[in-house]
């Protein structure tokens, strides 16, 4: 029997939400690691019962937890995240002065599609790590951080975080706030910025090669050259593997937001959650809405059925949207108000799975058969 498992990382622990393929009745387990921030939790495509979770607090630092039984039990694995190669040098601080790189936390975990023991992690201050032993040991892929623009990277409000990792065989993409998107064609050895076409009013050179506050990037596996980006402001699209970008915000009520999702079976169908502005991190008019484009951007439709009509002032973070792979594609997102919403019909209608979790930091979903 088909089972759907939603992995929700929150401000105060991790939760595992399960349902059958109808996705109308859910059971909730957790909190796992209660009291700890779980920025991200994701399962291995090669072994769905292998899960990884990033666990952190300001008191006790960073841990990575691993489950080999689908989240029933967990064990802490390696948490030695340093900067390889001796003196890591500096990046720019908020005030424009050089600041030594300092590890703070793991924002995103990306398991390999082929090997349960191989997993990548994106850190703050921006660094890309790889483990080939199930998370026991981590090695920084230094090619990203030592490329020439890195000393000029400056943190966004959330920190200098590497929050997006896209694996496409030997080609990889990462995204960093507020540096931009980077591409490697040699499995992470060397990197180059791929931000041509981005335009950001908040930086001195509005179309600079780096310095853009990219919030999230997604790609459909069947169309790897097409990338979709939710930038600080602007929804963007690339059809040449990031070499050039065009804005596809179209008729969105606001093009500020954090997550962006791509339908599992329709590479031109994408989802965003418009947020009022960079200073008002809640939906316009207190109405929580997902907007869907079936044309890869520019033409958007408002999805409202089942979502709050009024008095809703939550945010949806960059890693808090996911899609499942069932025939009728499921879309999921979590809010800073602790709700996880699910749609079992590609976004036409929505219902909350849970309403009162801690603030949701990330949402991932697995389909188990």
């Amino acid at each position, binding site marked *: 029997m088909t089972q759907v498992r939603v992995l929700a990382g929150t401000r105060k622990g991790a939760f595992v939400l399960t349902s059958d393929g109808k996705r109308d009745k859910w059971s909730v387990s957790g909190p796992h690691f209660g009291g700890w921030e779980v920025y991200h939790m994701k399962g291995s495509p090669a072994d769905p019962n292998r899960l990884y979770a990033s666990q952190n607090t*300001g*008191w006790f630092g960073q841990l990575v937890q691993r489950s080999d039984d689908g989240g029933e039990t967990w064990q802490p694995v390696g948490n030695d995240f340093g900067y390889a190669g001796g003196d890591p040098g500096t990046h720019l601080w908020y005030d424009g002065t050089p600041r030594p790189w300092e590890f703070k936390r793991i924002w995103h975990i990306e398991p390999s599609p082929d090997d349960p023991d191989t997993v990548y992690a994106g850190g703050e201050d921006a660094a890309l790590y790889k483990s080939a032993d199930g998370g026991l040991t981590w090695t920084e892929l230094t090619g990203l951080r030592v490329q020439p623009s890195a000393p000029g990277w400056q943190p966004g409000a959330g920190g200098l975080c590497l929050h997006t990792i896209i694996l496409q065989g030997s080609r990889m993409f990462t995204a960093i706030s507020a540096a931009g998107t980077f591409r490697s064609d040699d499995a992470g050895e060397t990197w180059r910025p791929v931000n041509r076409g981005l335009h950001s009013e908040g930086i001195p050179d509005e179309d600079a090669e780096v310095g853009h506050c990219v919030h999230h990037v997604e790609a459909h596996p069947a169309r790897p050259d097409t990338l979709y980006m939710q930038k600080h402001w602007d929804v963007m699209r690339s059809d040449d593997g990031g070499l050039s970008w065009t804005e596809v915000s179209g008729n969105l009520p606001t093009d500020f937001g954090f997550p962006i999702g791509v339908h599992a079976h329709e590479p031109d169908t994408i989802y965003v959650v418009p947020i009022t502005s960079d200073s008002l991190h809640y939906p316009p008019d207190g109405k929580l809405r997902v907007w869907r484009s079936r044309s890869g951007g520019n033409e958007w439709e408002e999805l409202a059925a089942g979502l709050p009509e009024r008095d809703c002032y939550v945010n949806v973070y960059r890693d808090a949207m996911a899609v499942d792979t069932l025939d009728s594609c499921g879309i999921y997102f979590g809010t800073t108000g602790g709700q996880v919403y699910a749609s079992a019909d590609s976004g036409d209608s929505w219902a909350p799975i849970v309403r009162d979790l801690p603030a949701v930091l990330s949402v991932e979903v697995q389909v188990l058969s």
Partner: protein
Amino acid sequence: MTFPDASPNASPGTQVRVVLPAHLRNLAGVRGEVVVRVGVPVLTQRAVLDAVESRFPMLGGTIRDRRTGKRRAFIRFYACEQDLSNEPPDAPLPDGVAAALVAGTEPFLVVGAMAGG
């Protein structure tokens, strides 16, 4: 709990009671105090913490920064109603503290600092 060796100096193998904050007890899978064996003749903050991390490797990096060895910002070390947090990690613990730890009459406390508003 009282240990037989009550001299202020430890002998290799001296046992020290340690109280961990709740999150770290959960992480280590223990309840209540733990007892660690300190393998150096002079009790220091570093020696006690090395013994804790040796017995509970999953606590590595949660009390002290892995790279610098420095106390994490929101961790405090207390014993015998004294704040040892800012003492040099390799300095011998004060005689009264060392004696109480060696005797087992007082524990070494690892505390999550009060922080927040």
